[in-house]
């Protein structure tokens, strides 16, 4: 949660699938790969657990960017969860874009348990994008941003 009188630092929420991406994040950690501390990871059982409401609520509570990470298509622990997630997120992101909310604030990446490097790179590049976009102003809840 940001408080207005402090200088802005991006807040990134990453929903990570338990079986691939979360393990990928773990691997990034054990391999001492750097990625910004601004990324807050929320572990989910599968990328398809991510309800569009989760994304919007993350923005409400002060997130500047939200990324969903899951197993590579075809590798879902539950066979097809990430295929559903793919459609859902595509439609949601398209709707957010339609409402004039910056496209770059949302992203989906497939990161496997072996891709610690990719996880760190993905987070670095996502944070970079968010920093260039600046503070989330279009999907914010002012009540959560004032003292």
């Amino acid at each position, binding site marked *: 949660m940001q408080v207005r009188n402090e200088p802005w630092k991006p807040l990134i929420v990453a929903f990570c699938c338990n079986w691939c991406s979360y393990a990928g994040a773990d691997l990034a950690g054990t391999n001492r790969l750097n990625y910004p501390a601004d990324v807050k990871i929320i572990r989910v059982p599968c990328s398809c657990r991510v309800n*569009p*409401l989760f994304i*919007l*609520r993350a*923005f*409400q509570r002060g997130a500047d960017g939200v990324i969903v990470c899951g197993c590579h*298509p*075809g590798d879902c622990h539950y066979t*097809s969860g990430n*295929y*559903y997630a*793919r*459609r*859902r*997120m*595509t*439609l*949601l*992101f*398209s*709707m*957010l*874009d*339609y*409402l*004039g*909310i*910056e*496209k*770059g604030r949302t*992203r*989906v990446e497939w990161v496997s348990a072996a891709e610690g490097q990719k996880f760190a790179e993905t987070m670095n590049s996502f944070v970079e994008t968010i920093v260039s*976009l600046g503070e989330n102003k*279009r*999907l*914010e*809840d*002012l*009540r959560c941003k004032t003292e």
Partner: protein
Amino acid sequence: MQDRMIARAKELLENGTVDRVMGWKKGEFIYDVTPAVFYTADELEKDFVMNAFTAANVSKYLIAETKKPGRILAFLKPCDSYSFRQLMNEHRVDRDNVYIVGIPSWGKADMEKIRALGITGITDITEKDGDLLVTTVMRETHAVKKYDVYLEKCKNCKSKRIVVYDELLDGENGEDVPNNRFDEVAKIEAMPPDERFAFWRGELSRCIRCNACRNVCPACSCEKCVFDNPKSGVENKAPADDFEENLFHIIRAYHVAGRCTDCGECSRVCPQHIPLHLLNRKFIKDMNELYGDYQAGETEQVRHPVTNYRDDDAEPGIVYTRGGSGR
């Protein structure tokens, strides 16, 4: 057509096919018609109405009505029949408990648009050859072209085809209608993001959260809406922040995506004239473009694009590269 409908309803009541009739009831004026259930021939004679203003989609009422004992006669317009078909696919209505007479619809008028013409003190409206003759207290008569005051849903009608019925009042079915219903969506997509954002703020900031769009929507048939559930964390009754206006409408449109038949009731009932159909049509347009043409309620197909997938679906990143400009 009203007389033929009453006559047919009376026959079906008399021969025991049905024990009651779902229709529209006369009001104080020509336009304030109310969906109603009729039990007797007398009631039908006295109050049953079918005119340029009987726009209300009665399909949603059939969720409750088909759970009651007996069989109900429902007159369904083409757009209503899509909603009903979709509700059948979702197992929300009991098809056996309803006898459907499909009726043609040549477009319904929007009283708000008549008022917007600046006509006040209306004492009477009559229909004549597809036109409306509006008489005022100052004894002026205005001839209004019905096409000019069509409801949005009629102006961009997608189909005159009745997709589910036991009989057709006219004996023959209508056909799909070429339409431009996605043009306005495309127009918004083509705006620069700042303009799009300003456009939607202007529209959604008018929301008073009366829930009319939700409660009238045949696809919004949850027993308890997430926005009414205090335990959901997103329950709210009034938009206390811009965010809540966005949240409600995005989630509502999303939740009916794939099930919305584009019946246009949400925009018809919005007291604040928010073009809610533009949100639903955006989803429909996206699904058509990305996952192949799909019309909810048209067939028996139960799995719609949001509850389905293909291995080679586009990656979400397509949103970054496709349509619109901006960041």
